[in-house]
């Protein structure tokens, strides 16, 4: 069957329009705006690299980069291993698996605001459930989890990981289904135990999925505005302020769109840089079937 040269393009036209209008267009626009002092109200004046120089020379900016990386450092491994453990457990075919899957997935579809409010209460310093339990077992002065600069970022990243765990668990489950059953059967015949099977068969063969998840979770970890806004407002001080939150503050509190755009570009470089590193080292730890 013959068709005109442009017909295939018609099929992807809608997707391409969406990609250009809602993704690449704004990205390109933000790139241009990052060299201006645009404040949303008036016209944008070209300021060259001033926005970048301001941030790169500012101690606060580097602290916030550190918070962003620490958030990712907690979030990504928690997701990569936590959701794998859940997926493996739920892949055993025991009774009630479907119900458990639904339960673990529930936080994913629950509003971040609701999750934040509930966990805020759980981690409350004086009336929170965790501190109540700690006092019950003898801790006289449990920490102020969200009001103490040593803990707030850890708590928020933990809660965000808890919320997203179910989503990545589903991806792992799909990956686990792809591992040929014959390999497990052969291993059992050879006398391998549960842990041996996991270590020698499941883990190596799930690494492509794990790679995909680590990239996705990395990107996810930088989109942490909602949970921080709900739980700590970036505080105490700036102890839980990350790049996403800092961008919001510059864009929608100070209306410094030029500065916010330059922060976005720096964040893009950061995420891109880590993703490239991950791809570079992929061959060292990702195994493929066949």
């Amino acid at each position, binding site marked *: 069957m013959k068709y005109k040269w442009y017909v295939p393009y018609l099929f992807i036209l809608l997707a391409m329009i969406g990609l250009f209008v809602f993704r690449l267009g704004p990205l390109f626009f933000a790139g241009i705006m990052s060299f201006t002092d645009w*404040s*949303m*109200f*008036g016209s944008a004046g070209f300021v060259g690299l001033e926005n970048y120089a*301001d941030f790169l020379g*500012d101690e*606060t900016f580097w602290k916030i980069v550190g918070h962003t990386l620490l958030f990712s450092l907690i979030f990504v491994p928690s997701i990569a291993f936590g959701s794998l453990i859940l997926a493996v457990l739920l892949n055993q075919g025991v009774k009630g698996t479907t119900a458990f899957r639904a339960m673990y997935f529930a936080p994913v579809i629950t509003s971040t605001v609701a999750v934040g409010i509930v966990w805020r209460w759980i981690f*409350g*310093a*004086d009336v929170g459930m965790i501190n109540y339990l700690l006092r019950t077992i003898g801790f006289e002065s449990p920490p*102020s989890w*969200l*009001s*103490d600069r040593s803990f707030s970022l850890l708590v928020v990243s933990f809660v965000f990981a808890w919320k997203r765990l179910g989503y990545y668990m589903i991806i792992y489950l799909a990956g686990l289904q792809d591992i040929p059953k014959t390999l497990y059967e052969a291993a059992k015949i050879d006398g391998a135990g549960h842990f041996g099977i996991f270590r020698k068969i499941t883990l190596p063969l799930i690494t492509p999925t794990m790679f995909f998840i680590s990239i996705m979770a990395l990107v996810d970890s930088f989109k942490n505005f909602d949970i921080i*806004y709900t739980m*700590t*407002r*970036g*505080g*105490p*001080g*700036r102890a839980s*302020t990350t790049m996403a*939150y800092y961008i*919001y*503050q510059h864009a*929608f*509190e*100070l*209306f410094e769109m030029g500065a916010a755009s330059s922060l976005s570009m720096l964040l893009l470089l950061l995420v891109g840089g880590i993703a490239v590193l991950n791809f570079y080292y992929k061959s060292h730890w990702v195994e493929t079937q066949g």
Partner: protein
Amino acid sequence: MKKLLLFLVLIISAGMLFAAGGKEAEAPAADEPIVLEYWMWDPNFAEQEQAMIDEYEKLHPNVTVNLTALDPKSYWTKLAAMAASKQMPDVFNMHPNSVEDFVDQGALYDLTDMVKNDFKKDDYFWSVMESSFAVNDRYYSVPFAWVGSLLYYNKDMFDKYGVEYPSDGWGWDEFLEKAQALTKDLDGDGKTDQWGYGVFSRYAVYDGWLLQNDGDYLNREKLTWDPNDNAKEAIEFVYDLANKYKVSPHPKDLDLDKKKIKLIFQQEQAAMISEGSWNIKYMREDMEADFDWDVAYFPRGPHWKADTMHAWADGIAVPATAKNPEAAWDFIKYVLQRPAADYYPGKVPFYKAEAYSDEWDIFKSTGKPPEHKPIILAYGDNASHFYTKYWKFWRGYASAEGAGISEFIDASLNGDMTMEEFYVEADKEVNKMLDKAYR
């Protein structure tokens, strides 16, 4: 193809000519239909606002006012987006912490001539107008209401421990004495369960202490952070309340924020707190306190000169691009005359005749607390605040509520930072922001 291009060029040219002609058009005649888009930031009051608009439209049959009530969180973002596209509403709410930014961008209509023509200063709380909306001696917004910081106290708790209510013109010594008498370890475990006074870094909770000691965070001429000795004295007194006298909790022990501070008062964990006057509504209606309570003003410090209220206005403004500023101004004047009963219990009408009415003093008309609400009015002629550009960042507000000096105030109240460290850190952080703001 050429024909198509020619057609498009003609259409666009015709459109531009039409638009240019529109700009030259004269102001609409008195009976010409006028539509005003009006944005406000409080959906809770949309019904009352609409009722007021209905009345206005009856009096002005040619005017239609379309009300948009937005949640405060999205209000400023949307307003800024509309400003960017030069499509701001014809009339909208304005706050003193944003007015300078909007003026800087040329987004607001200069109302000075209208204000001077139509307002008698004595009829209004003029100091609120001056401190909130005068930028370079021009007026860019008009208050319709104003609020200030107050001290709330639990009368039942005072009675229970035989502590006298705050006297008129009370000072720090009297305050401390009462706070100490009301701080109690109720279960005898060696830990305080009931605090004399709850305080943390929030501007509405904290800044009144400085003003009642004639203190200032800022060097107003240079627009730098440079707290004067009186300000330092107030900062150190509040520090001592938590760390030396131990009549106030460490904020982090109770996760104090703008919600929790009200809760510890409402749940009788603190006999006194300070907060904005709009919280009278919260105490009276939203989460009704089941004890008798009242309000007082912040106690006077040793260097007090005049009763000064940390007060600011809710205003109403017109965009620089207004198509019909006269119609917008006429509507604004009507809004300002609305009856006192339409206001939040803790908000004061800018128009004195309404503010001093029995309708506003609900205790007099219904017996509902607080009995001394009218003390707010006495301070209305001496309003002050610390708003500058970047105020949200350096003072710590909204999404940055824990940042700026709020971070250091809380750290010092928590005992995690000495006063010396406080001044060093605040100087570094705040001046960096102010320098950027006014560069």
